[in-house]
Every structure is written in C-alpha cells, then in structure tokens.
C-alpha cells in the first residue's frame, strides 16, 4: 500500500535510520523468554533498592 500523499514531501521528525538495539535483538532471538526473569527484574527496580558502591 503506498504512503498517503499528505505524508510525502514533508520534513520528518525521526531524523536518522533507526537501528534495532543490540539488547533487543538478542532478546528476540530464539531461546528462553526474558519474561521468565520478571521476578528478578522486579527486584532490581524495587523501591528503596540502593547501589552497592
């Protein structure tokens, strides 16, 4: 389906070709789903968690 004429010849807002980020590309390759680590991620962003520095 061709692009709507109203979108042609206008200045864009994205500005540059978008690249699939490496971490996302890795996550969508075949293998265990990252969703399985939901609990671990939730723990990492739990309120009150502090950096161990």
């Amino acid at each position, binding site marked *: *389906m*061709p*692009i*709507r004429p*109203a*979108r*042609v*010849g*206008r*200045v*864009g*807002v*994205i*500005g*540059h*070709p*978008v*690249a*699939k*980020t490496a*971490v*996302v590309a*890795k*996550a*969508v390759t075949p293998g265990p789903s*990252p969703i399985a*680590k939901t609990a*671990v*991620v939730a723990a*990492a*962003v739990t309120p009150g968690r502090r950096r161990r520095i």
Partner: protein
Amino acid sequence: MSEATLSELGPVDYVIVEFPAGATNFTGEMAGELLALVDAGTIRVIDILILTKNDDGSVDVAELSDLDDLGPLVAVEAELAELLAEDDVAHLAAAMDPGSVAGVLIWENLWAAPFASAARRSGGQLIADGRIPIQAIIAAIDADDALTEGA
C-alpha cells in the same frame, strides 16, 4: 500551534513494535490497553502507522483508517495528527526484518506535561532522555551476578 500551547506540550515519544512473520497474535488486547491510557488522560495518540517490510526490502504503509474494523479505535483515529512523513517511514523501517509487520505509535505523554512545563518555567532545558529496555536490566543483572560469582 501557539507558543503558549507549545510550552504546555508533554514529551512526545515513539515506539516501533515488530511482529515477526508467523508470530502475530492479535486479540484486541493492545487496542484495549491503548484506549485505557487515552481514556485515563495519560497519553494523547498523535500518529499510528502499520508498516509491512516485504522480503525484497520494500515497505508497505497502512494507515489506521485503512483497517477494516477499527472498533473502539475509531475515536483515536479521528484525533490523529499525521505527524510522520515519508522520510520517517524509511528511517523506522530500517530497523525491521524483511517479512515482518510493525506498528508505529507516536504519543504525547500528557502525564508528564505539567512537570515538563514547570521545568521549562524554572529555566531547565532537556539535555538527554531515553528508555531503558527490560532486556538491558536483565543483562545488567546477569553481569552483576557473574561478577559476584567470580569474586
């Protein structure tokens, strides 16, 4: 758009969500969640496109209005601003794999507008922003665990 309106505009974000060939499972759940965000005043949808990247690399562009049955998304479609231009389509499709379909969503974060306006009135200037993918958090946790085990 007037200067006053611009100063009250919330941050505008975009996502492009790819559905690999044979992996789509559209149940209407996404539309329902999107409508819930709109109805709650959390976001305002600015533009939506559905891109199909063919095996030869060419890209087909469908508007929301091109879909046969929009259902409750009719209300959202009526308010779209068609912000994206032809160049944007090419830029966004660059991230897609051949044979995949992707939804592109542009929205204004209405929830953030009051804070953003206050920051501007206070003399603040946005110098960087971004999103941290869940996958990046997982990778950081894995790396942290590996360091701990190796210590």
